[in-house]
């Protein structure tokens, strides 16, 4: 069992491209950390550096108290699950899972016990004699998990393990991996570009962009208090709505003005921005249809561009004041395309960002 620490880690490839400029991160022991970000953000590179599959250009990487920069992958006491499973195609499921233990010269009966134990947890017992090609995608992914499990590693690394599965299976495997984490009580580092996976599985989420950590916090914090425009736009589905608004001083405090809308707020952080344009963010679920949310001029009235019925909820797509808005309303709201709707911005749930630095002003 061990935590992972990055100290000023830099990764520059031979061709001179720096993918990780300066990474400082501390993953606690037994924590489930999700690295999330768009493709090319350096999340996989970070994971591969932990695994030892990618060298570190400068800085220090610690697993537990040991500096790992020059330690070979096999000596790091880690296990990794690959996006494309990476099962040995010529070996049976049993042999795939037993391979690492065989190399360690673990006694045969112990290997047998461990493999069967893992197979039982993952529901793979009846497939032990099969080769990977005779398995479905979900089963292969479970074998890959099992192969990592039997080694009882101190760090479990998962590189987009669910991205090749269909939606239903993904949901199923998501909960299975979360369960596994609780069962194994090991440090998990999980890479994904899917923010739903990140939000549902991680104890903490590290949002990355261009090799730089944008925010490293709990899912709730990321959702409620995104530190910048990027995180605000990345976390949450559908994405947060953004509109350029001008800050105006009023008797009660301040107002954020865009189009016909005037959103009142008393937040003193806005004082330096009076007269300037900021980016106002509001999550689709915080655009409300109920009248109880109307406070002053915090409404926007627009024609519905597209209406998506999802059953339990309805998504409305609107164009207003030069920005595109998505509203996530209860399924009971029926507003066909072409109809006019009036929605209130939940003033307690607005986000405001500096237009230049893109940093959050309120959090």
């Amino acid at each position, binding site marked *: 069992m061990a935590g992972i620490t990055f100290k000023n880690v830099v990764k520059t490839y031979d061709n001179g491209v720096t993918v990780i400029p300066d990474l400082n991160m501390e993953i606690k022991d037994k924590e489930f950390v999700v690295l999330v970000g768009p493709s090319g953000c350096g999340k996989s590179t970070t994971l591969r550096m932990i695994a030892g599959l990618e060298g570190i250009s400068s800085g220090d990487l610690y697993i537990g108290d040991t500096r790992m920069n020059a330690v070979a992958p096999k000596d790091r006491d880690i296990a990794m699950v690959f996006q494309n499973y*990476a099962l*040995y195609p010529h070996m049976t499921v049993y042999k795939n899972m037993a391979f690492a233990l065989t190399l360690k010269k673990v006694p045969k009966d112990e290997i047998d016990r461990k493999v069967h134990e893992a197979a039982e947890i993952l529901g793979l017992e009846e497939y032990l004699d099969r080769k990977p090609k005779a398995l479905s995608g979900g089963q292969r992914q479970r074998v890959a998990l099992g192969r990592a499990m039997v080694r009882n590693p101190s760090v479990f690394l998962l590189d987009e393990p669910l991205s090749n599965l269909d939606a239903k299976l993904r949901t199923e495997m998501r909960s299975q991996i979360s369960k596994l984490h609780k069962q194994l009580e090991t440090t998990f580092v999980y890479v994904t570009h899917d923010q739903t996976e990140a939000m549902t599985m991680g104890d903490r989420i590290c949002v990355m962009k261009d090799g730089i950590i944008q925010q490293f916090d709990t899912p709730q914090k990321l959702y409620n208090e995104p530190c910048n425009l990027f995180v605000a736009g990345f976390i949450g589905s559908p994405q947060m709505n953004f509109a350029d608004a001008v800050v105006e001083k009023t008797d009660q405090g301040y107002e954020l003005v865009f189009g016909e809308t005037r959103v009142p707020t008393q937040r003193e952080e806005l004082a330096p921005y009076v007269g300037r344009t900021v980016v106002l963010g509001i999550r689709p679920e915080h655009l409300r249809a109920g009248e109880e949310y109307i406070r002053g001029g915090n409404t926007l009235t627009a024609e519905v561009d597209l209406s998506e019925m999802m059953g339990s909820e309805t998504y409305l797509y609107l164009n207003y004041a030069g920005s595109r808005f998505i509203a996530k309303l209860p399924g009971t709201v029926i507003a066909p395309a072409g109809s006019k709707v009036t929605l209130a911005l939940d003033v307690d749930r607005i986000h405001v960002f500096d237009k230049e630095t893109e940093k959050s002003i309120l959090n």
Partner: protein
Amino acid sequence: MEKRTSYGRTILAYVVLIILAFLCLFFFYILIINATRNHAQIQQGFSFLPGKSFWVNLHNVMNDANIPVMSGIKNSLIVSGAAAILATYFSSLTAYGLYAYDFKLKRPAFIFIMLILVMPTQVSALGFVRLVTGMGMINTLWPLFLPSIAAPAVFYFMYSYMQSTLPLDLVEAARIDGSSEFRTFNRIVLPIMKPAIAVQAIFTFVTTWNNFFVPALIISDNSKKTMPILIAALRSADFMKFDMGKVYMIILIAILPIIIVYLILSRYIIAGVTLGGVKE
């Protein structure tokens, strides 16, 4: 209408295939038929029906002191077998080295190997014979198979095959599992390469088996001669004793091992051995 076109296509395909098969197999048929006829019969011209001299021809071939057929086959088997093993193993190893590792001289190394590929054997033959003589290996079987360790054509085939079927994730997974680099190659990479190895083993075996040029330069002892030299020796034998029946018989004997090797290895040539290991 559409059905008729496809029907016509099928017939055309069959006709073409039958012609091609005929072109390929007809010579084997002549060979087998002529091996059963005596010299006089063969000289009269071709016949579709077999003769009755099979055993006589076989007896003549086996009992010719000048042409040690059995030792010829043994030598050819040793040389071709060793060449096939060395060429496929070491070419796979080289290809793996260039495919799986990143190092500074990777590209120059690749180009260098490709340059050797276009170099004809004849160009370096004289130097090769001098080298072999200098190393005291002239008139031995060693120089006939040892150079197979460096087989650029086999290397290129293996390299292309790896590119299409060997995901590097497998190698990394093995590394994390604690496998040493050599073990990864032997236990993970080689089994995946089996179809390619089978194909190249057959090719190398056949080419080495048929090779006349190099053995003719190196071997002078009758007991160390390989089959092509023996066949050539038979053809250039005394005109008065020349027996075509014997020539056909010895050629028939010479191709049998190749057919057997092909039958053994062909079952490994199955497509998609990695199917399922990695999802594309």
